[in-house]
């Protein structure tokens, strides 16, 4: 019998070690696994490399992890937002390393890690500062930059429903990075709003098959965040 459910967020993140690379799902706060991040803060791991689209909002979730000085480096596409002051201060103080990646290359590099691609030629970023020093090639008259996979030790993501095999469905635009991060990490930990019975999810509509999921924590009232109007992508 397979049962990937875990009783608490604390138990789910207990083995994340110092220096680990951790992908964190979400686009802004939509899909951000806030309770798993809170558990990671309580757990104490430090020197982390974080992969997320952004660099935190306000002082909750990812921003709280940054504020607690647990993060050595962040790989993201859009760190600067109206309420990213925690990251901004760390960055200006030289206390955090930033690898800035165009959002589509970030997504494709994560997808490459999960699907066994060694590297790929992408048109995005060619001729820009963000491709400086990278290998380029002209293919069929178009210019491309060679980009490599981004792998992780852990992924922390949020989904809507899971079953005990770890099959997942998401909700609306909170899906974003969840499915590709789940496949790119050695150990994927999911907080879901509801665990349902095996067979309750439509097999045609499962977005993340359970093979990509190691642990599932049910956190019914995860919706404590609010939308953040006015910040950019």
């Amino acid at each position, binding site marked *: 019998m397979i049962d990937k459910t875990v009783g608490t967020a604390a138990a789910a993140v207990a083995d994340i070690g110092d220096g680990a690379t951790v992908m964190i799902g979400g*686009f*802004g*706060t*939509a*899909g951000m696994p806030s309770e798993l991040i809170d558990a990671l803060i309580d757990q104490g791991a430090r020197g982390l490399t974080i992969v997320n*689209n952004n660099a935190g909002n306000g002082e909750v979730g990812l921003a709280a992890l940054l504020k607690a000085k647990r993060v050595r480096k962040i790989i993201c*596409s*859009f*760190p*600067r*937002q109206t309420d990213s002051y925690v*990251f*901004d201060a760390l*960055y*200006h103080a030289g206390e955090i390393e*930033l690898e*800035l*990646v*165009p*959002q*589509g*290359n*970030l*997504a*494709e590099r*994560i*997808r490459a890690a999960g699907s066994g691609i060694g590297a790929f030629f*992408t*048109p*995005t*970023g*060619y*001729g*820009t*500062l*963000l491709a400086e020093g990278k290998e380029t090639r002209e293919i069929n008259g178009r*210019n491309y930059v060679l980009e490599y996979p981004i792998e992780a030790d852990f992924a922390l993501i949020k989904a809507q429903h899971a079953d005990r095999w770890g099959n997942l469905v*998401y*909700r*609306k*635009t*909170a*899906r*974003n*990075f*969840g*499915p*590709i991060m789940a496949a790119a990490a050695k150990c994927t930990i999911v907080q879901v709003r509801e665990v349902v019975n095996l067979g309750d999810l439509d097999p045609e509509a499962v*977005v993340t098959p359970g093979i990509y999921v190691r642990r599932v924590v049910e956190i019914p009232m995860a*919706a404590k*965040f*609010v*939308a*953040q*109007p*006015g*910040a*950019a*992508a």
Partner: protein
Amino acid sequence: MNRFTREQMAARVGRDIPNGAYVNLGIGLPTLVANHLPRDREIILHTENGLLGMGPAPEPGAEDPDLINAGKQPVTALAGAAFFHHADSFGMMRGGHLDCCVLGAFQVSVGGDLANWHTGTPGAIPAVGGAMDLAIGAKSVYVMMDHLTKKGESKIVERCTYPVTGLKCVNRIYTDLAVIDVTAKGLRVIDIVDGLSLAELTRISGVELKD
């Protein structure tokens, strides 16, 4: 000097988008275009965080934090919408499937280079988001911007002085003074604000413009 208002600019862009087009409207000024899409056309909006068939902002109180656009503002989903993950969404962009995207800009060069992600100011925190993917991905890239900076310098330039977002990617520029196509033979003015001559527009712009 006459200027097109922002609403006029947005309406003009809206008129240029045909029925059935798949369109991504960038953050800022381009967002206005959504209010000016001709009502007799079905135009399907894409937001890079994983939605085709994006609808207007919800009624106050009906916001859903799981349903936002690339600017992280609450939106709605139309009948016929589809959700997908980030790799699929950016594959859609990079693969050339969007008919059109509309972007803001700091500068556009006469060759169609776009600068819209970074001022290059020392100490500024760089942030790029999906700008570079949009710049190279859509079949047509439209830019909406003021013609001049607040200091009166032309934002249409021989060569971008800001860090570029993409090379040779802009197809058309909508400013408060004119609508200009970027062609293989140079910039071609296809509309101009009442009372402004091509000669005067050329002088203000500091680059060669043709009829």
